[in-house]
């Protein structure tokens, strides 16, 4: 035990007190000197302050030079990081640009389509002449669904004029007399009207059934014609102006029938119109 304590003391003494190989100062001396500097520095001893100022002068300049490689490494790291960020940003922007370009093509297409449709609309700008007439005869014949109105050729009524009731299509003039005219109703078996069904812009032919409704013909069964779809005139064939509301689709016994907006049995006054295309 005694030997062990002696060894410890010898080792400590050797480490702290003995001046080592090639050492100019002993560790204890330098430790003591360091403590002295700290204590004197605490009480603002002028020599310590001068020492600090002198070391400051040397160190700050040296530190600036010494830290150049680290700063360079830091700058290089930041530069590489920036480049990577730039690349990521570039990729992201490229993706966005592609998306915008694609949207632009769509937009260009829509603009072109809009222009084309506007042009088409301008071409199909109708001039209309309207006359009102009173229904004289409304015979509910089972073979012919027609009405007689009190306007004829003396009122410039011509064959093929569109007949409307409350802006809904009723039929067309098929016979013109001097003071009267016959109107073939849409519900007549011989009535064939080109129509357009919305939504879907489905083109079809509306035929009369001889009853108070119509039927859709000449369309594929796969077409998505749903109950509640609205039937408009399509304007095909030039018989009627396009877009006149006709009726609503109802599905009965797997057949698509059309309930007309106008009640043909209640017609009292109708409107006779002619439409001429402005461009023509």
């Amino acid at each position: 035990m005694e030997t062990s304590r002696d060894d410890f003391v010898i080792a400590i003494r050797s480490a702290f007190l003995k001046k080592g190989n090639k050492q100019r100062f002993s560790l204890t001396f330098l430790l003591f000197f360091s403590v002295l500097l700290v204590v004197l520095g605490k009480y603002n001893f002028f020599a310590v302050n001068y020492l600090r100022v002198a070391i400051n002068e040397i160190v700050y300049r040296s530190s600036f030079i010494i830290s150049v490689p680290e700063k360079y490494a830091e700058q290089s790291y930041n530069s590489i990081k920036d480049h990577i960020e730039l690349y990521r940003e570039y990729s992201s922007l490229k993706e966005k640009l592609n998306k915008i370009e694609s949207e632009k093509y769509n937009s260009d297409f829509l603009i072109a389509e809009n222009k084309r449709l506007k042009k088409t609309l301008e071409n199909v700008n109708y001039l209309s002449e309207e006359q009102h007439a009173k229904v004289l005869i409304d015979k509910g014949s089972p073979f012919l669904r027609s009405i007689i109105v009190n306007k004829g050729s003396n009122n410039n009524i011509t064959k093929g004029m569109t007949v409307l009731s409350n802006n809904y299509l009723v039929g067309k003039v098929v016979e013109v007399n001097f003071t009267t005219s016959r109107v073939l109703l849409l519900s007549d078996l011989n009535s064939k009207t080109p129509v357009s069904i919305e939504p879907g812009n489905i083109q079809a032919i509306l035929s009369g059934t001889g009853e108070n409704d119509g039927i859709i013909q000449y369309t594929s069964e796969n077409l998505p014609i749903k109950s509640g779809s609205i039937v408009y005139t399509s304007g095909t064939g030039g018989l009627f102006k396009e877009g006149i509301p006709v009726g609503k689709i109802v599905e009965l016994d797997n057949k698509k029938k059309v309930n007309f907006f106008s009640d043909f049995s209640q017609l009292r006054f109708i409107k006779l119109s002619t439409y001429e295309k402005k461009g023509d």
Partner: protein
Amino acid sequence: MVLAKNKFYPNLLKLAPIILLYIAVLNDFDFNYIKYFSFNFPFILIYYWSLKKSESLGYGYIFIAGLINDVVVGFPIGFTSINYLLICGFAGYLRNITLRPRMVQDWLFFLLTISFVNSINFIVLNMLLAVKIDYLNLFYNTFFTFALYLVFANLFKIYQTAVFKEIND
């Protein structure tokens, strides 16, 4: 002349530990870019070289390095010198009592050394000099310094073998 030239580079290589120490203290070399990650490279360097080859680091140079570190960091002058010299003392003690050096033993004694030195550091700064330091940062610094000792010790060992042509353990 040729002889002198031939000796210049080997001598420069032998001075590498002290040059590295001065670069470390002038540059405040601790990699504290990441939050809570920092380590005290001069502690590792002084401990290793004092333990393995004490003549490569003169106590006087270590003392001056401490003064420089105080100025760079802003500690009271002479304060870091005490820490550095205490590490030299601990390393010297271990050298004196060790017959067959082992890396693990050095490493564990290094933990004891830096714990003692950082405790002195904390007590003196916080209590006597009223300089506030972050206890948590000091703890992490101690931990990473201890953990990284093995890495640097192995690197220094390779360097020592290559330059000083000797094998310690």
